[in-house]
């Protein structure tokens, strides 16, 4: 794994809100083509971590390098250019509710690739809708879709820009087990077809097991355990064990 290209490198990342320290010296290397899962309880700072990576939040200290560029030092223009290579899937999917599915998908494409013709944009829209299996929903509004479909469209909206890195924020939160399995399969499919590297934020162990090549547990602002699913959970460590027991026994 260490010979592979590092696409995200984080060193000693600290982030706090007011007096509350959320991230306390995070270190992370994400390799090309890898799915890295960050597990942790609600409020442990998982979402803050990927928001810092996407440049939505500024770190207090530490270095966040994405595709060789230090995110917090980039100008607005350079940050926008970098964001074309980053796909961010929000927990709520954050679809633009005043726009149809087609408009949601073509929105960023029209504005970032102004040289493209309408025909080329339509082909790209069709292609990503095909990839997430929702081609027939193209003219509907987000309010007409189910939770699982909204997640899929959220993924399609980022895929249309052909990102190198995908950042998933709780991709299976609030979904039934069958839809969760479908989303997990979709995440793996996206990684396989588009050769993306992903950071998947979740507290769902089924999702972590199904999608993660490596898994890290975020506790008290730092990664307490990092490794494969088996390495992380074959332990007597009470914090990891209780997390595992809650997900798979309860």
């Amino acid at each position, binding site marked *: 794994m260490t010979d592979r290209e590092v696409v995200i490198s984080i060193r000693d990342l600290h982030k706090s809100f007011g007096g509350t320290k959320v991230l306390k010296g995070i270190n992370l290397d994400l390799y090309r083509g890898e799915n890295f899962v960050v597990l942790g309880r609600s409020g442990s700072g998982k979402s803050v971590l990927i928001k810092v990576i996407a440049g939505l939040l500024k770190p207090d200290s530490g270095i966040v390098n994405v595709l060789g560029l230090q995110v917090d030092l980039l100008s607005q223009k350079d940050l926008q250019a970098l964001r074309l290579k980053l796909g961010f899937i929000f927990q*709520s999917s954050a679809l633009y509710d005043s726009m149809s599915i087609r408009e949601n998908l073509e929105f960023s494409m029209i*504005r970032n690739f102004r040289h493209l013709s309408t025909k080329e944009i339509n082909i790209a829209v069709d292609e990503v809708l095909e990839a997430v299996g929702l081609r027939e929903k193209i003219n509907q509004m987000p309010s007409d879709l189910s939770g699982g479909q909204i997640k899929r469209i959220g993924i399609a909206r*980022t895929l249309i820009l052909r990102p190198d890195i995908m950042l998933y924020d709780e991709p299976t939160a609030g979904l039934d087990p069958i839809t969760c399995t479908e989303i997990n399969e979709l995440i793996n499919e996206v990684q396989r077809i588009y050769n993306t590297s992903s950071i998947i934020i979740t507290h769902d162990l089924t999702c972590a097991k199904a999608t993660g090549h490596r898994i890290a547990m975020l506790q008290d602002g730092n990664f307490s355990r990092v490794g494969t699913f088996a390495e992380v959970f074959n332990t007597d460590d009470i914090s990891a064990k209780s997390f595992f027991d809650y997900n798979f026994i309860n």
Partner: protein
Amino acid sequence: MNIRESAIRLINRIYCTLKKYRSGDDLFTKKIDAFFLEVVDVHKFVTRFFKELFTKPFEFKEIINQCYQVGFKSVPLITLTGFVIGIVFTKQSRPPLVEFGAASWLPSLIGIAFVRALGPLVTALIAAGKVGSNIGAELGSMKVTEQIDAMDVSAVNPYKFLVVTRVTATTIMIPVLTLYCTLVGLLGSYLNVHLNEMTSITAYFESAFSSVSFLDVYSAVFKSIVYGFTIGIVGAYRGFNATNGTQGVGKAANRAVVFSMFLIFAEEITIVQITNWLATL
């Protein structure tokens, strides 16, 4: 207690107050800090508008869409309000003018009142309620549901797409609506005058505009541009900085209306003073 002791106690008190101020423990000082921080924030927000307005890419299509939303969709409300105010204002003004034998001045009075004050002010207040709250609520809801962040991470500048387009639309459309409101108000007034004095529409409008100067029209248009900008920027600022979920959206919409109305009155007083001063030159 001698003078020395009193002086020491006084110094001690001042020291404690200053210490309290510096540490920011006091609620009052925290509010002052918050106020000045917001002033800086507003300044940055407004400066960014002018910077982004003249930088490529331009969102012409969205500006036209917003002009339609702000302008065309406000027409029914402006028509009703302007027309009713025209009738009522004429009806209320007639008795005192008749008492002084100056009923023939009624069209001029209405003309001056509508062009100088009623048209711009009524349009601005209605737009602050309808358009300002709409912008505040829409952007606020986009903010709390992370749609603005979603635009940001998909390499689209949300400020340009959401704020610049809306503020430009209000700045363009409020003057247009003001002229329309003035016209509709004068028509309402004409209806009342016609029913009482059987005046022709040509004679009425000739009389109404006889006392209106170029400065009146110019200041009315200038005022409405300022009001339009105020309504747009206040609504957008409140929406763009909304927090705390749905409650925050409600607050953003409410504050957008209250602040823009407050600013509109302050601007009205200032511009009237300047116009009066210019008229005396």
